[in-house]
């Protein structure tokens, strides 16, 4: 599985949504992406990519696209 596929899978499984909805996905745009869902997402990303995210990055991760940007810029995750 590629990094992008892994990243997509985490979003789909955490928020129980179809992959087609990922591109425009933002915080609280689906029912399960609330504050609790957000922490579940962070835990899944940290585990999958073996990282420990800074609190500022956790707060800034406000969309599917922003997450990619943060992971690649601050945690050397290559998409």
């Amino acid at each position: 599985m590629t990094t992008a596929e892994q990243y997509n899978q985490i979003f789909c499984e955490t928020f129980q949504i179809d992959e087609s909805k990922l591109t425009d996905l933002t915080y609280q745009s689906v029912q399960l992406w609330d504050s609790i869902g957000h922490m579940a997402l962070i835990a899944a990303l940290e585990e999958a990519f073996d990282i420990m995210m800074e609190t500022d990055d956790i707060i800034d991760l406000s969309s599917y696209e922003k997450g990619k940007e943060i992971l690649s810029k601050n945690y050397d995750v290559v998409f």
Partner: protein
Amino acid sequence: MLLQGKNAVITGCLQGIGGATLENFAKNGSNVWACALTPTDEFEATCKKLAEENNVWIKPIYFDLLNQDQIKAALKQIASEKLPVHILVNIAGMTKDAIFHMISMDQMRLVFEVNFFSQMFLTQYITKLMVRQKEGSVIFISSISALDGSYGQLSYSSSKAALIGATKTLSVELAGKGVRVNAIAPGVIATDMNKVVPEDIIQGHIKQMSIKRLGEANEVSKAILFLASDLSAYITGQIIRVDGGIK
């Protein structure tokens, strides 16, 4: 052996309640990341001796609670070891005593930085690991001065009161994730921090106690041990006074 096989992070291990807790945890089978401000030969030797005598590992870690980069580096070191962290005991703290109208805002901020904000920063990271494990016990060291007030200790007692609020709220937020959060409120304990307190004031405190003596650091550490262990598995969000029944 109340903590056999557990791994704990303890701050303020160099002396007093922290030193006693480090010893008690090791004696009860816990491995420890022993956090302190600066390395000393004596501290390194103590860690080594305790580890050998009790067949546990004790790893000294040094950082200044006023330096977020140092805290971050320490946390990364702990996380990089890929070991579960079962217990976090936030002991390191400071006081700057002065009556209210003699406290500068800088002094007040300094005390809050050490006693509250740095502990929140550390706890945010460690509890993320605990949530992943679905298991953990966090213990803060508050103070009876936060509960009762104490002349000349506004910064200290306010920062310690903030820890009580944090304990209550965190315990609610993390209970469903398997993490318990409690605090100890020590009374007047015979530690270096209290050595500077004039004898007549100490005697005044003792008069107010049901048990007519100062507490020992080891007696506080036993309450910490209880909260860290499974003996307190159904206890969270509590502030336990260890004060000899002070009135």
